[in-house]
């Protein structure tokens, strides 16, 4: 049994099913995982922020969207990422650590009917870069792992016509493969920050 994260405290903020899968995976690797800031005992080693608002994962043409839906699909989840990063900083700034955002690849490559969600994804990536620049001196790294719609929302993945090219490798499973990669970033030397790694098995290679 691989318990490489034994002794590590992890906080997985939100993300519903995706967050739950990451939490299960990190727990299986030995980490002590909580899902809410209030449940932490103080400092943690790792914070995972899934940028996977369930509302944003379904298609919605921009021209047909009313303002309330725009706010629900774009402004609210991007604001939640800002708050989550601030919460992450609050629990990491005592001893440093790792922040990882799970972002959608469709935000980087563009996808029809996902404009609001794409704005959230790219906004989150830029916010992560700003955080990486600001918090590096405190020993905090901030990186993004980009996942496909097939990984994040298999039910509607077929609606994303821009992802027809098959991945070169198998599509990473969130609970096992993504969690293991998060462990690698957590345990490795703190020399990578502000970057985005495509964790899609070699699907998109243009970024």
């Amino acid at each position, binding site marked *: 049994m691989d318990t490489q994260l034994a002794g590590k405290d992890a906080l997985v903020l939100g993300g519903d099913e995706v967050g739950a899968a990451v939490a299960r995976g990190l727990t299986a690797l030995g980490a002590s995982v909580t899902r809410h800031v209030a449940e932490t005992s103080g400092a943690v080693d790792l914070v995972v922020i899934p940028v996977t608002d369930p509302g944003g994962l379904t298609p919605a043409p921009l021209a047909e969207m009313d303002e309330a839906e725009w706010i629900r699909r774009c402004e609210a989840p991007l604001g939640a990422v800002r708050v989550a990063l601030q919460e992450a*900083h609050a629990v990491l700034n005592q001893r440093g650590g790792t922040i990882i955002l799970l972002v959608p690849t469709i935000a*980087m490559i*563009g996808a029809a009917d996902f404009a609001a969600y794409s704005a*959230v994804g*790219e906004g989150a990536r830029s916010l992560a870069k700003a955080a990486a*620049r*600001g918090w590096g001196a405190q020993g905090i790294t901030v990186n993004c792992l980009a996942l496909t719609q097939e990984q994040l929302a298999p039910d509607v993945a077929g609606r994303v016509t821009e992802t027809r090219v098959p991945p070169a490798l198998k599509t990473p499973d969130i609970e096992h493969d993504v969690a293991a990669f998060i462990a690698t970033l957590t345990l490795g030397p703190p020399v990578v920050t502000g970057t985005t790694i495509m964790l899609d098995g070699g699907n998109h290679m243009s970024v």
Partner: protein
Amino acid sequence: MLSGKTVMVTGASQGVGRGLALAAASAGASVVITARNIDAAEGVAAEIRALGAHAIALRCDVTERAEVEAAVAVTLDRFGQLDALVHNATSRFSGRGAQLQNVTDEDWNDQVAVGLRAAFHCAQAAFPALSRVAGSFIILVSNAGIEGSLPLPVYSAIKGAQRGLVKSLAREWGPAGIRVNAIAPVAMTPAMGKFFDAQPEMRDYIKSGAALRRVGEPQADVGPVLNFLIGPNSAFITGQTILVNGGATMV
């Protein structure tokens, strides 16, 4: 190059917006200057009319959907068509520095309103008119949205989000013939001038970071790129961010 076309620019009463409006007019476009400061907008429109081009100024708070819709309606009534809407307006808080952990709701909300909700208003209001002429929707973004900015995390987030919007909207509206692109300039504006006055050493710092060793001029350096993106020579370009920064960032 743009003769017969009508271009609306938001936040066009000064700075980059003013430069873009002057450049489009110089290329033959009729230009609609929108801004919250109608007096300043009228001044830019008068400058353009003095050049012999057509221009009108409209007071428009882009955070208000009704005002954006009204501006598009007046444009269509006056000029008969809208070929390009350029969303350039930025929040008055966009230059307010704060590390991310100290960002307040006030910092965040106004920039979201002007940068994102207004982009949504502009896109929706312009969509019917742009689809009739296979027009262009263009958003002014920033290197901060590509590289991330330590002192300006909110601005980074908004500009990055706008780039995501551009890419997906380009795919969504491509079948309707509408092209959607972004321009990321580094150009001299009144705000940048004040910044340099307060911190003179930053002028040389920013210049030295650019391969071409200077800060761009809105009309002379950024304007031609806008005209290219609106004009016929870019008919096969959509979903892109064009960096107009003298080689400060190379992607």
